[in-house]
Each structure stands twice: as C-alpha cells, then as structure tokens.
C-alpha cells in the first residue's frame, strides 16, 4: 500500500505545480483558462488553420493534381488578375451576391410581415414557407433544372400551352439571361432563412410601440418604417452578413444548373476554382482564386460589424 501511495503522489504534485506553485491567483486562472481552451485550439488547428494555411501555401506553387508543386511566387495571382475569365467570375459573383441578397431580404421581409399577422393556419403557413430552405440543395436545384428544361420542363409546357410562346424558351442557355435564372432559383431556396430571422426579430419589438403609433395616427407604412425596420436593424445586419457570405460562396446552384455555362455566362468564382482545380487539375491557381477572394469578404465583414457596433453604441 505504502508503495502505491508514494507512486501516486509525485503525479499529483506535478499537476498541482502546473496550476498553483509559484503563481498568483490570476496566473493560475490564466493557466487553467489555456488548459480549458486547448481542446478547441487543437481542433481549430487541425481542422481550420492547417488546411487554410496549406491552401495559401499551394497558391504560391504550381501544384497540379497528383504532382508536387514548385514555388512560383505570385505568378498564379498575376496570371489570374490579368485573366478575363477571373474578372468575369468576380463580376458574376458580385452580381449574383448583390442581386441575390437584395431579393432574399425583400422576400424574407414580406414573408415575415405576412406570417407575423394573426390568421387561421398561421403555424401551417410558417412551416410551409420553410420548405425551400429545408430541402437539400441538390433536390431543390435539380427541381429547378427540371422546371427550366426546354424539352421536359413544366414552365415551357405551360408557356406553350398558354400560347405565350410557340418555341421553347431556353432559360439557362442564353448568355444574357442565364445568371438571372440561376439567381432566381437561389433566392427561392434561401429567402426563408431571412424570413425566419425577421420573424424572430419581430417578436422582440414591443407591441405597445405599435399601439401608441396607431393611436397617434401613424399609417401602416409609417409604423413599418419607424418601428419595424429600426427594431430589426441588428437582425438585418446579421442576416445580410451571413447571407452575403453564403451567397458569395455558393457553388451548388451554378454547378447543378449550368456548370458555369453557357460559355462562361454564369461562371462565379467558386465555379472557376472548381474548373481550375478539378477540370484543369491546376490546384495552385484554384487555391489562388479562393485566397484572392478573402480580402473582399473580409472587408465586407469589417464594414458590417462596424455598422453593428455603431448601432449598439447609439
């Protein structure tokens, strides 16, 4: 027994030394804090920092699929910046994001306003409106692909049967329009998230503000403008921030609907990265595309968080 006690004690002393000996209470708390953070930091390092820094490293090499990369400095970046395809992808990504987020905001707000009213079957309607967002992306976009199909699609059948057109309309095959139809499908799939967030935000706006405004003779529009919108300011900034990041990084809608075509009409930056990496096998350039987009997204996040903080201070 005596032997077993003496073998256990030194271990206990080492652990206590780590946390207590020669340290002030504040230092002890700090050590303990770092110990508690260690698991999360390790997980972040393995799952985030390591792949992320690998991607940055690869972007400075000529790495191709199945081949080692050699250091090429900034040539991937200079090549991309001078490439018309990259500029087109950036332009399409920005258009897709700005238009997409705008309509998601608009439709989400309308959805929230409608579902915030008291009417019979409201809970059912709330569930119904969430369906696009709940559906797996693959199912949602393949359904849209089928809807748009000129030969088998329901939209064209309807247009022809109603006598609106006599020749199938190629929704996704026109360079002028394809990006808009892809954006429409994406907006349909994503706006319920905006609506849900707004609806949740509306529950926190005190009802007596509306009642007081109504007694003062404020119109519906004035109540919306002066009570609802300011009350949703924080929620709006959060959903715009998240919506922008998600839309800018969206890959599924373009890949499943057009694969970036016709020609490069719907090429967004994620599709360009895919094309360079997995079609042309040039992983160095594909990584550079992604890395180049980081400052843009970072800038946007900084602007929005600044706006949020300013709102808090006010």
């Amino acid at each position, binding site marked *: 027994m005596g032997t077993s006690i003496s073998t256990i004690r030194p271990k206990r002393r080492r*652990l206590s030394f780590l*946390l207590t000996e020669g340290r002030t209470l504040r230092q002890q708390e700090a050590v*303990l804090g770092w*110990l*508690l953070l*260690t*698991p*999360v930091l*390790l*997980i972040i390092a*393995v*799952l985030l920092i390591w792949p992320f820094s690998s991607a940055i490293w690869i972007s400075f090499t000529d790495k191709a*699929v*199945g*081949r080692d990369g050699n250091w090429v400095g900034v040539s991937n970046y200079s090549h991309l910046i001078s490439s018309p395809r990259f500029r087109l992808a950036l332009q399409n990504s920005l258009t897709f994001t700005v238009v997409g987020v705008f309509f998601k905001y608009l439709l989400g707000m309308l959805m929230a306003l409608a579902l915030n009213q008291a009417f019979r079957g409201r809970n059912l309607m709330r569930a119904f409106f969430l369906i696009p967002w709940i559906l797996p992306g693959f199912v949602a976009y393949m359904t849209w692909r089928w809807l*748009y*199909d*000129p*030969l*088998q699609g329901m939209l*064209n059948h309807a247009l*022809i049967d109603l006598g609106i057109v*006599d*020749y*199938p*309309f*190629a*929704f*996704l*095959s*026109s*360079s002028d329009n*394809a990006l808009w139809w892809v954006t429409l499908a994406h907006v349909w799939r994503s706006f319920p998230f905006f609506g849900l967030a707004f609806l949740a935000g509306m529950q926190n706006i005190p009802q007596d503000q509306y009642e007081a405004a109504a007694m003062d003779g404020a119109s519906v529009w004035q109540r919306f403008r002066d009570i609802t919108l300011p009350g949703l300011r924080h929620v709006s900034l959060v959903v715009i921030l998240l919506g922008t990041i998600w839309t800018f990084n969206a890959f599924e809608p373009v890949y499943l*609907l*057009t*694969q*970036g*075509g*016709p*020609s490069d*009409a719907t090429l967004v930056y994620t599709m360009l990265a895919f094309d360079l*990496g*997995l*079609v*042309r*096998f040039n*992983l160095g350039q594909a990584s550079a595309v992604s890395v180049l987009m980081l400052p843009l997204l970072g800038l946007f996040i900084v602007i929005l968080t600044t706006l949020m903080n300013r709102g808090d201070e006010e």
Partner: protein
Amino acid sequence: MTDDRVRALLQEASRLRYSRRQLLRRASALGIASAAICAAPALNVSARRGSVQSDTLTFWLYRSRLDEFDETRRERIKAWGESSGVEVNIVDIATSDYGTKIPAAIESNTLPDVLELTEEWFQLLLSRGLLADLTDVYNTVDAELGWTPIVKQLSVEADGTIPRVAIATTSTYLVARDDILSEAGFGPPSTYAEMFDFGAQAQDPPNTFGMGTALSNTSDANNWIMSAQAYGVRFADDTGEAAVLGDHKDEAIDWLNLMVDAYEEKRVFPPGVLTWDQTGDNDAFQSERTIFTFNPLSVPAWLKENKPDLLEKTGIHLLPAGPVTSVQPVGTVALAVRKDSPLVAEASDLIHFLFDLDYRREFFQYAQWGPATVPENDFPIFEEFMPVRVEVADAGTPRDFPEVTNSAFNEVKTTFVVPRMIQRVVSDGMSREDSFNEAVQAVQDIYESHAGA
C-alpha cells in the same frame, strides 16, 4: 424518511461535491483527452502520406444506365472474392462523377485498387505514374483467348508497358430515328452537312429537333471533335507534341460555319443544349424529342430494356464524313490497377477471372460495348443486336486519330476547347475568327504546358 437516512444522504452528497477548481481541473483533463482522441486520426492520416493500405480490394465500377448489366458485373466480382477469400468492396460510380472522384482520390491517396476507366481518366493516371504494369495478365488472356487487333494496338504504350486490360471496345455512332427520316424521304446521312440538312427538314419543333448532342461543357460535347477532324482540323502535329491548330484556320472556319448555321439558321439543336449535362443527349433521344444523336450505344441498350418499340424505329449508323476525311474512332473500356496497391497480384487474378468465356457471353448480353477478344466476335448477341459493334471493332480508326493520344490532347478534351469554340459564337456573339483565335491560344497553352512533362 428517517433522520439517519437523511444524514447518510447528506454525507454521500458532501463526499461527491467538488470544489470549483477540482471541477475545472477534471474538465480540462477531459477536454485535453478528447482533443487528443479527435486529433489522433487526423495526425495518423497525415503521418502516413502513402496510399490507403488495406486487405480489402476496392473496385470502382462504372454505373451504367443498365441495371442488369451492372448487377451481372457486380455478381462476377463478388464471386471472385468468395472463391479467392479476398474481401471486395465494389463502389458504383456514375460516369459523370468520375471527373471529381478521380482527382480527389489522387490528391487524398485514396485511389481504389482496381478501377474501370475510359481514355481520359486512364491518361490522367498514366501520366502521373499511378498505374501498375499488367503485362502478365494481358499476356495470359492473349494466350488463352487472343486479343482483337485493335485492342492489341491500343493496349501497349509507347514504352512497351501495358498498364490496362481492355474489357471491351467502344466507339461513337450516329443513332437516328430512321422512321422519321424515311417519312421525310431520307436515308442515313453520309456527310455532316447532310445530317444537319436532313435533321432540319425532318424535324417538327417544338416536338422534335434535328440534332440532340450537347454543345455544353460536358464530355458528350467532345463528340464534335470528330466532325472538326472530318473537316481537316488538326490540333497537334503527327508527333503529338506541338500544337498546330493555328495552321488550320480555313478548315476550322468552314467547320464553325457548318455548326453555327445548324444552330442559328437551321435551328436543329434543341434549346437548352448549351447547358445540357451528361444525361441530356440520352434523355432527349429516349423521350423521342430528337432525330439524331452521337452515342456509344448506351441509348439502344437502354431502349432494348425499356422501350423496345422505339428501338425498332432507331438506326445505328457509322459517323458521317466531312469534306476532308471521316473518322470512326475505336477506344477501349479498360481495367487498371493502382501501382502501389498491396493487392496487385490479387487484382491481376481478378482481372483474369473476368475473362471466362461463359461470363463474357453473359456480359455482352447486356453490354453496349463491342468485343475485345477474338472468340467474342462469334457470340450470337453480336449477330442479333447491334452487329455494327463487331464491324467497327474490326475496321475503325484508333481513338483520337489522326491526333496522337496523350495527356495534352486529353486536356484539350477535358477543358472542352471544341464545344467552347461553338459556344463563344452562338452564345456570346463572338466572331468566328475571334473564337478560333481563342481556341488556338488555349491549345497552344495546353501543349506547351505538357512539353517535357
């Protein structure tokens, strides 16, 4: 409850109570242990840096659209596993998914031990030195059955190695609605110009369209390469090392005129063809919306099982000719083995097991492909159904001819240089010359990047 019982419970509770610090210590120790457990597999994976090593033989199988065919192949592979005592993991992969699966598997060192593959993926793996030499099993099958001349020609690489074993020959044919053509007073077209003319006159849009082959960024659209070749367009010189597309401007512009006229004036392509995916051609023909399509016979094989009445109205013809030449390429569907697989010997044995003549008879009962060995030419199925497969396997031109098959020409195909040339004109409104010049630059860049690789 008695006082004693309450006292006992309080004592027990006090014994179990931890101070805040004790609780935090235990929590942190538990957290570190959890993190170590989570990180261990990741660290283990990165430490290995080699391919996945396992006693299980993984087999990637093309998922065709023919259920019975897929089932027959799976059963045969399983039968080998049972007889040899090797555990086999069969992974069905849709042809359109190979494009993402193979590059990802190369990078993550998770290529299967055996995989079924066509030319483009074979070239990718071969150029990276990832395939085992299968000369022994190739020679064994040759001694037992004898390869057909075209398979012999296609199997041996320039350096004399044999890194794949053909399980069948494959070609692209002109599949046509002969019933609609004959009603309009036409037979099978002998030239591409005739094909578009017949299609334009026989079609009845929006119900039927003349030509149902994709013009999008999908591998089916690369069938248009053969029409460009028939117009005399060349992409590289006879050594396959230097790009020469720029020297064939007149031929390329003639060919572009033909294609743009068919799209814009004759309107034989269904709307949507610029963004069709891999299933577009088959779906359109099988749903009776197109008159012509280029196809490796997956359409007739599907019709045989699912729409025999439509099969009777469908003709299978050789590819039309152009003003310069005609090409009828023959390639192979082959099996390859990962070079660093610990099961190369077992994989070779499995491949040999697949060349049992009774099984091959059953295999071709469902397959869309043509024979690979001499005795298969006499299988009754090749007399009953799509006999053109034997003729083409016997007399077709080697794949890619007159180009040299190599990784550079493979990249011309995987980057869709030819369909893009058409898209740039009919979709982006670019002039034919500018579109051609852009293609010349793309081909030039590709061949330069492969020089000396």
